[in-house]
């Protein structure tokens, strides 16, 4: 491979990646203008227009944004500024924007916004800035300038209907392997596959079988101890994650959502319980359903937080020994602002932990983990700036003085682990399920008990 000359490197914006650069190279001015106008005319309507015309350019959304706060109040990171630097200009110039402009637009929409919707709570008019950033990503997708790593996960979704290129036999094999391991401790434990008419379809994101199979083990032990009638699908549709939702590849996003609901429908389950992932929850509860034309999901969709709450309050799982380390709880945007589960999460934490300290701000107002919304999925090239862009989270975490940080979302979990290491916070990052598993009575379930 030829080394790029120093000159060329200088011209590029820092950390731009080959998919973006390659995509930009292929574009013509005509294609840029045509694509932008097509999206604006065909896929948007009065909603966007009203947002643009209602915004008073007051800048009050700035205080909501962890990027703005982490970068010493740099105005270019303010939510409205991100809109100004992207969609406003596309509208003003009727799609006649340059490649340099687009390079920046990719960066802003994919890497400087977690689409966490905190800014909508700080805009006096409740303007949905995340919607506009996702629209910019949609345009970038249609122009084929999506960052490489996240595009790769979408390609995987497209081919395998899961995010991690997990092949069908690997998926089943992993579940059977977890079942076999667990049976050494719990004699009748099963991970029932394709059990028609089960009460619950349990569903995870593809990184669980790929890297964190232990989480499936833990979930199986909980289901077993609680005596739940549950199942997991062996067929595509088992993965509830949806990265296409974040790249604006709505067509693939819709395919993923449809396959997921179809798996549940084929199994005739009563409801869907999901593991600790926020974006997956958003994709099933809030986004995918809309794309396939259901106002609300056709199944009851339950996030792990809610499910744990149910197991504990109904006494299906008992805590043997309370967790005594000092813990704090991160509210993932997609299940707190996205589903109002923050209070239940606190109740669960208080049921199992003796020393809980809250972050400030918390609940709907919690700072984003800086990883969600597809940002961490843009991959290692951007990790450094992700750390800089989320200093405010590190400060917030540090102020709690907690030993253990509970992050009940995969994206948050990974992002916060990076932050904890980068800022040397001396904290252990755990899923809520990890702590429940550690403290629960590991009962061997006997039918009828």
């Amino acid at each position: 491979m030829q080394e790029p000359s120093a000159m060329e490197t200088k011209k590029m914006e820092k950390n731009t990646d080959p998919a973006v650069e390659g995509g930009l190279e292929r574009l013509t001015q005509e294609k840029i203008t045509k694509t932008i106008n097509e999206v604006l005319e065909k896929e948007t309507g009065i909603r966007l227009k009203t947002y643009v015309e209602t915004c008073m350019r007051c800048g009050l959304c700035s205080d909501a944004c962890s990027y703005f706060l982490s970068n010493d109040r740099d105005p270019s990171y303010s939510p409205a500024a991100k809109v100004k630097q992207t969609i406003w200009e596309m509208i003003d110039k009727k799609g006649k924007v340059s490649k340099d402009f687009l390079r920046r637009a990719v960066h802003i929409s994919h890497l400087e916004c977690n689409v966490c919707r905190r800014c909508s709570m700080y805009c006096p008019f409740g303007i949905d800035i995340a919607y506009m950033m996702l629209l910019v990503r949609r345009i970038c997708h249609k122009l084929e300038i999506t960052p490489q790593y996240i595009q790769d996960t979408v390609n995987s979704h497209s081919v395998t209907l899961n995010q991690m290129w997990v092949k069908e036999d690997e998926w089943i094999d992993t579940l059977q392997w977890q079942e076999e391991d667990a049976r050494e401790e719990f004699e009748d434990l099963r991970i029932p596959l394709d059990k028609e008419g089960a009460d619950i379809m349990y569903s995870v994101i593809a990184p669980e079988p790929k890297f964190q199979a232990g989480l499936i083990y833990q979930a199986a032990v909980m289901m077993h101890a609680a005596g739940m009638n549950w199942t997991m699908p062996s067929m595509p549709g088992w993965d509830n994650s949806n990265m296409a939702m974040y790249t604006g590849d709505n067509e693939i996003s819709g395919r993923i959502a449809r396959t997921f609901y179809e798996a549940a429908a084929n199994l005739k389950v009563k409801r869907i319980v999901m593991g600790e992932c926020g974006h997956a929850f958003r994709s099933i509860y809030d986004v995918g359903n809309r794309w396939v034309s259901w106002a609300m999901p056709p199944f009851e969709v339950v996030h792990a937080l809610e499910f744990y709450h149910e197991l504990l309050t109904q006494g299906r799982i008992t805590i043997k020994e309370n967790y005594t380390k000092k813990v704090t709880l991160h509210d993932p945007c997609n299940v707190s602002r996205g589903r109002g589960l923050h209070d239940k999460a606190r109740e669960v934490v208080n049921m199992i932990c003796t020393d809980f300290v809250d972050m400030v701000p918390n609940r709907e107002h919690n700072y984003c983990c800086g990883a969600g919304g597809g940002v961490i999925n843009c991959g290692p090239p951007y990790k450094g700036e992700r750390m800089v862009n989320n200093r405010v989270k590190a400060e917030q975490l540090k102020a709690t003085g907690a030993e253990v940080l509970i992050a009940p979302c995969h994206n948050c979990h990974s992002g916060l682990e990076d932050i904890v290491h980068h800022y040397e916070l001396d904290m252990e990052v755990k899923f809520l399920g990890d702590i429940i598993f550690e403290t629960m009575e590991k009962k061997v379930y006997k039918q009828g008990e």
Partner: protein
Amino acid sequence: MNGFIDFIMGPMVWISVMIFIVGLILKVAGIVRKVREKESYIFSYMTLYHSLRSIGAWLIPFFPRATRQQPVFYAVSYIFHLALFVVPLFLSAHIVLVEEAFNVSWPALNDGVADILTVVIVAALGFFAGRRILVPEVKFLTSVKDFFLIFMVLLPFLTGFLAYHQVAAYEWMMIVHILSGELMLIIIPFSRFSHMITAPLTRAYMGSEFGNVRHARDW
């Protein structure tokens, strides 16, 4: 000259008020129609309860967390918006004009109070303009248009104030006052001033999404 003054104090008042009211009605009707045409899903998420809950929460001074983080801005903004409606509607001189024309009247604001409120409005506009120049994140978003909008509000209040105190060129002051007041009414439906009617709509939608779908609060 007198003919001109008669015109701007007579038919022109009617015309501008009609443009203001009809313009806003048509604006809302247009939004509703276009939502129905292309984005009808919006209606399936909106509920009256969550819309009003959100709008209500944001009307209570310093109830939303965001407003407590910017206490100075919101304090100025609340008072400014209140005075903006109270002064023109309850100014004794305006009420007298209406009474002469239609023989209806309502209680007037004490002239001294109205005077003070006008100064408050002018000062608030100065604050908004200053913020646009001095606060980096606001400056980044600001264009000439924003100063024009501030000027458009300033003009009728400032000239009204100067005319009332007969500082100089009374007749001209009055003409500018009347014209600029009418102009402001006319441009409301066609400019970002229309946030007086669109902001409750965007708030209602966000409030519904947060409350109805996401079971969370948006304040």
